[in-house]
């Protein structure tokens, strides 16, 4: 490597650090603000306080919202991963007419802005009489997260040796049995990742939840209400707290994932 190349490399690396700095600036800042005494943080900062954390921990509405959020994201992750798995497997195994239409049905939701999904879903749910319930949020979030589940599991199935399933049939296993004994174990890491990711996406989704939730608020809806309502550093405290919780889950999932399936780790 010549000197100029080394210089370029270092410049590029520095650039990467800058980009990461930009990405992490708001996250770090929000953690700092969450310990800052001022209600409307400005520079210079006020004094250190845990007041906002005390406030949220003592607020039953926040606990209620946390419970709703957990219920919603867990249900969503199970449903979306199940449907995503079925879809990924269909795509992997079968060729049929209208397959493109079928796949479009699965992959289209992310191309539609959340605000539009929110509007359409609220109107529709009100029409068929299921608006404002916890499970209307679950139904909506499942639609939004199926594509992620499907993509993760589909990528994993790509890596599978096609002859494995055929071998199972040749050994006399039924199709169902082959799925159970061969496909699911192979896809298991992807299934776990998919559950984590879909849960996380659901946990942070606010636009659709805001529209369809009615009185059953999730954590992001509470955050939105505080941001649009009375600005309050509780937002930062909630944000930091939620971040801590979800990162713990992700890291746990990652560790489980690594120790179980040592063969292949995360992308790429």
């Amino acid at each position: 490597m010549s000197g100029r190349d080394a210089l370029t490399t270092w410049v590029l690396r520095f650039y990467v650090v800058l980009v990461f700095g930009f990405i992490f600036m708001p996250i770090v800042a929000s953690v700092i603000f969450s310990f800052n005494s001022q209600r409307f943080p400005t520079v210079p900062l006020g004094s250190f306080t845990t007041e906002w954390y005390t406030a949220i921990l003592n607020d039953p509405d926040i606990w209620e919202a946390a419970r709703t959020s957990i219920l919603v994201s867990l249900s969503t992750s199970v449903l979306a991963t199940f449907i995503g798995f079925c879809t990924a497997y269909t795509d992997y195994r079968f060729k049929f007419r209208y397959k493109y239409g079928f796949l479009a049905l699965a992959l289209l939701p992310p191309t539609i802005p959340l605000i539009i999904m929110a509007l359409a879903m609220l109107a529709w749910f009100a029409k068929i009489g299921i608006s404002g319930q916890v499970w209307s949020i679950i139904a909506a979030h499942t639609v939004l997260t199926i594509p992620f589940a499907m993509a993760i599991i589909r990528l994993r199935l790509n890596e599978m040796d096609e002859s494995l399933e055929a071998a199972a049939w040749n050994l006399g296993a039924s199709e169902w049995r082959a799925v159970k004994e061969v496909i699911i174990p192979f896809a298991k890491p992807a299934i776990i990742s998919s559950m984590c990711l879909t849960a996380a996406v659901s946990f942070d989704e606010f636009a659709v939840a805001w529209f369809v939730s009615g009185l059953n608020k999730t954590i992001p809806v509470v955050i939105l209400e505080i941001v649009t309502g009375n600005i309050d550093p509780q937002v930062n405290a909630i944000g930091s707290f939620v971040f801590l919780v979800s990162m713990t889950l992700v890291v746990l999932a990652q560790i489980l994932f690594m120790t179980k399936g040592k063969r292949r780790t995360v992308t790429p």
Partner: protein
Amino acid sequence: MSKKENRGRSQQPSRRQVLKYSAAAALATPFISRAWANTVEINMLAWYGHGEPDMVGAFEEANNVKFKPKYYAGGDNMLGLIAQSPPGTYDIILSDGEFVQQLNAAGYIEPLDAGDYPFDDMLYEDFTKFPGHWDGDTLYSMMLRFGHLGVSYNKNAISEEEAMSYSCFWKPEIKGKVGHFDWHLPSLGMMSLYNGNGAGLWDLDDAKWEKVQETTLSLRPQVGGFFDYGGTFNSLKNGEMQAMVGIGDWITGVLEKDGAPVASVVPKEGGIQWTESYCIGKGTEKADIVKKFIQYMLSPEGQVKSAQMAAYPGFCITKGGRALLNEVDPKEAKRTGQVDGMANDPITLIKEGRIHYRDIPVQQSLEDWNDFWSEYKNA
């Protein structure tokens, strides 16, 4: 739990045990207290802050109820939210005074019994027969609090004399620093006042309405942004905006307490009054406890809570409320002029004819105003 603790092997619970139990207790408290007895849940539709602990906490505790609030901003928003929910969703609705009529016309609210409320203790006789709150002899909504809208400004950018006229919004030095609270009614009302429409500010014929639009559009180059509630707070506080159209002390009062150099005045062209009133939602099964809550909010204690509300302050409407406020928080009473005989006593301002109740447009529809508002934002 106590049983378990007594059965502990050693007499003295180990430090670890204590920590463990207290942590478990701390985590479980919110659930236990909720599951404890059958708490009645009251669904509330209100402006931000009315369902927060500082307002309803004491009442919740005393009556074993729990408020579930849904917040809106602006009367149009409120009507939309009710229309989208099944009938009977909201037990109690905090409405802007001028929207009560619409609520009633749409059949969203129950009639009230006037005998339940302290009408003999009102600070001002208008409040006993507030426009739109009565249909004939039937009361439909109980006024709770009010406040005044005028010029809200940063003291470092605008002097108090300048703030005494809406013309200060056009001051060249604050170009790009004038914000709007993102709701057509108060902002356009102020423009109408600036045009000299006085008491007829909502009753505009075509020519006057044309003129109001013209005036408003001429302000557009000054405008730095359109803000919701939170944005309004923040942008005044951090100095991004030096003046704000469409608000009053309900925003700047909170900021002042936080030490920001901002204030609100009622300018010489006149100010606008916002009024908040409680209604009981049609079809609720909790009318009794809701009635009790409204009575509580009109008691001196409730009125003081409203005057000190963390989200935004509102003036007391009863003599009893004002008296108690002067007793427990004379500083806030003085800051807001709620002391008998003070020059800027809000009641005096109303009596002098400087204040006009916020209303909906008389000759145009709300839609027309709203359409113009989105055009204005786009201009």
